[in-house]
């Protein structure tokens, strides 16, 4: 058990979590040129960004806050994603797409 008020325990937590960041993020970087992945693995890794982001975004938009799936068109987060997606396709402007998405999300929260 750690006592959240104890300095030593908190220091151990901070050091341990910092290690978890270091070890996971530098894992394959440390191996560097010493390992060679198969062509199939390299192809698979090309899709890592898209798949991981989809797995982060989907629960954030559709489950956020609760435990049930909210796929209704009145889900303000879904409204925000639709609005910013349309703006992105139309204008290709990232900052504009964030602003439009937040605006649609806020309006949907207040009025829907």
């Amino acid at each position, binding site marked *: *058990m*750690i*006592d*959240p008020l104890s300095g030593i325990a908190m220091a151990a*937590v*901070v050091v*341990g*979590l910092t290690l*978890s*960041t270091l070890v*996971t*993020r*530098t*894992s*394959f*970087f*440390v*191996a*560097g*040129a010493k*390992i060679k*992945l198969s062509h*199939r*693995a*390299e*192809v*698979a*890794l*090309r*899709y*890592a*960004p*898209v*798949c*991981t*982001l*989809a*797995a*982060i975004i*989907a*629960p*954030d*938009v559709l*489950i956020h806050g609760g435990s049930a799936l909210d796929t209704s068109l009145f889900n303000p*987060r879904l409204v*925000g*994603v639709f609005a*910013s997606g349309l703006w*992105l*396709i139309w204008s290709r*402007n*990232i*900052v504009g*797409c*964030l602003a439009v*998405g*937040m605006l649609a*999300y*806020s309006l949907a*929260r207040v009025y829907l």
Partner: protein
Amino acid sequence: MRALGVDAQYRRLVSASGPGSDAAARHAAFRAGRLAILPYLPGSCAWGLVSGVAMVKGGLDVPWAIAMSMMVNAASAQLAALPLIVAGAPLWVIIATGFITNLRFVIYSAAMRPHFAHLALKRRMTLGFFMTDFTFVRFMRAAQENTLPATHRDSWFAGMVSMNLVTWHVSALTGIVGASYIPTDWGLEFTGTLALVALVGPALNMRPAVVGAITGALVALLAHGLPYKLGLFAGAIAGILAATLTDRFRPRDPSAAEAA
């Protein structure tokens, strides 16, 4: 006299394409990297702010919240560990939670490894430690679109990472110090989610990517109840497998595609 003049000119040319211009190319790559992440920074800023507020409101003392934010550099792991810390969970449970929440970065480092394999170990570790979801995805998209600089890709990445890091720390500190003044019911953190959408959207231009994204999203939703954010990791792995399978069965040659 003339020969000397040519010689001097030649030497100037050599030095211009030597170390001097190499440093210039390095700086240019660094600056280009800073610009590449710029439009996505509102997302980092909102997440930093909200996670700073959450740490203090979650029950951490301000000095420990600052120490954790400055050292750990991983919002999702910090927020997953927070309730465990406050509840007084065993140390190993807290640290294991940090590791599991950070698992996706093992995939990220595997994906980026070939780009940085030639660098010195210290440089590789520094770049790895400060990588984030945003900077990783932005880098991989530039690699796929062939918009990375020809040389000094590490500096391009360092430019992105430094910009993102400063934004993150300034906003997290603001959140920690100003926790009681920052509204938590406005859903500011949604800006971060939208920035991820803006990052991933343009990459959905091929069938394997679309299949992978849909699979990843579905599995992450189904596995959402799993502890330690393992649902996210399961979704990522399932998505990558689905994308790879789709990639293998897609026609390689444009002429073969027309014939089919």
